[in-house]
């Protein structure tokens, strides 16, 4: 069994992998940024009065939530250049990271639109009524009363979506991104697949630590922001 599994390869993998964590975070960070912006727009469409806008926004959300990440990734990576081809635009020189960020932004936006929508709807209408009754304008009421409360409700779900994004982002290696997952893949290929298990174990520990860190961060954030609300504690 010694020939097949050697624990030292686990420890050796860490210093090789850790420098690439920043690529993973870069992709995640950009995707969160663009995805949240798009998510707000979609949520506004869902909550607004236009039936057409609602159908589009809901259709978009359903389509993206039913699509596996690698399928979406390949559709964007191969599909967009092909569409551009038809207009005579050559996209073959564009860095693949752009396509990756587009893919995960689209995906994150679908998730965020639901998070934002349900957080907004969970705020009692009476808060808004009281705000305008004391003389706040609609905009002031939303900004000072509704939004801060909705933010706290949305926070845990945002954290979950963020974690999902980082995990799904690992699939970017399939089109050649060298983030922490891509590097692991390279290392294993370089060894002709020997001691793959050890490298994957190291990789999983890295992801595990990142998830726990993010989870703890969001728990702290929830505590900080929910001064005026009761927090339910699951065991």
């Amino acid at each position, binding site marked *: 069994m010694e020939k097949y599994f050697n624990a030292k390869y686990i420890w050796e993998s860490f210093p090789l992998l850790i420098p690439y964590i920043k690529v993973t975070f870069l992709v995640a960070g950009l995707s969160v940024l663009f995805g949240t912006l798009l998510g707000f727009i979609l949520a506004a469409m869902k909550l607004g009065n236009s039936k057409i806008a609602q159908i589009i926004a809901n259709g978009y959300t359903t389509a993206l939530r039913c699509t596996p990440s690698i399928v979406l990734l390949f559709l964007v990576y191969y599909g967009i250049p092909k569409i551009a081809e038809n207009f005579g635009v050559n996209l073959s020189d564009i860095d693949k990271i752009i396509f990756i960020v587009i893919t995960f932004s689209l995906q994150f936006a679908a998730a965020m639109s639901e998070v934002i929508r349900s957080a907004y709807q969970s705020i009692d209408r009476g808060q808004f009524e009281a705000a305008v009754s004391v003389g706040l304008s609609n905009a002031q009421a939303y900004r000072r009363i509704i939004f801060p409360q909705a933010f706290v409700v949305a926070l845990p779900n945002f954290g979950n979506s963020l974690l999902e994004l980082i995990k799904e982002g690992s699939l970017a290696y399939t089109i050649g991104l060298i983030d922490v997952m891509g590097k692991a893949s390279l290392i294993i290929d370089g060894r002709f697949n020997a001691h793959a298990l050890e490298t994957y174990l190291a990789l999983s520990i890295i992801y595990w630590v990142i998830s726990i860190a993010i989870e703890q961060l969001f728990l702290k954030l929830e505590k900080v922001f929910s001064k*005026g609300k009761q927090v339910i504690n699951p065991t």
Partner: protein
Amino acid sequence: MLEIKNIHKSFGKNEILKGVDLRIDKGDVVVILGPSGSGKTTLLRCINFLEKADQGHAIFGAADVNLKTASKKQIHDIRQKVAFVFQNYNLFNNKTALENVTEGLIIGRRVPKAEAIEIGKKALDKVGLSEKYHSYPIELSGGQQQRVGIARAVALNPDIILFDEPTSALDPELVGEVLTVMKNIAKEGTTMLVVTHEMSFAKDVANRVVFMDGGVIVEEGSPKEIFTNPKEERTQQFLRRVLPEDYIFYI
């Protein structure tokens, strides 16, 4: 000071307000009584535009506002003069008691912060919550929350305060403290329009009682007139149901 003329409001097929006229003078404490569904709450909510009436006018001092077509500015102006106390308090959950009271002053009326805090503290003192300036609604009992709600309305120094069943959501033992506060501000001469089931308040504090049923005002008069000498059959039926059995009417 405030005169409502011919207000109509329907929700879908249900016509809730079928033409209501009401006049309130400065210093009046008007109590509206009536069975549920009679339109009392809807009337109040139409006055400060939480609901948009289908028809009707509100004459406020010199201004005559069409309730259906009022502009944003007109609505905003009226809300500066009319304050509202909600049945479910509707305190801003993310703000302390003091912040709740000063929010409308600082943001809605651009009162400087220091001045607003002074006014806010005085209002909270008036309702007996000097110890609770920095408490969050979640830390307060129902009665305390409603008192903050009243302080929030009082601090705005409005021409009239609307009370929508202010004690209906409270445990019985907490009702008293809120009614006491309301009595005190009535004594100070605040103009109040109150929808309530608390007959003691109607009898002891109001100077006018209005009985509504089925979307119209059936009868109105002084408390003495309404409680001891109701003229309309419907008024008598209602009073018989809500007052203790041995209450005698003098016909």
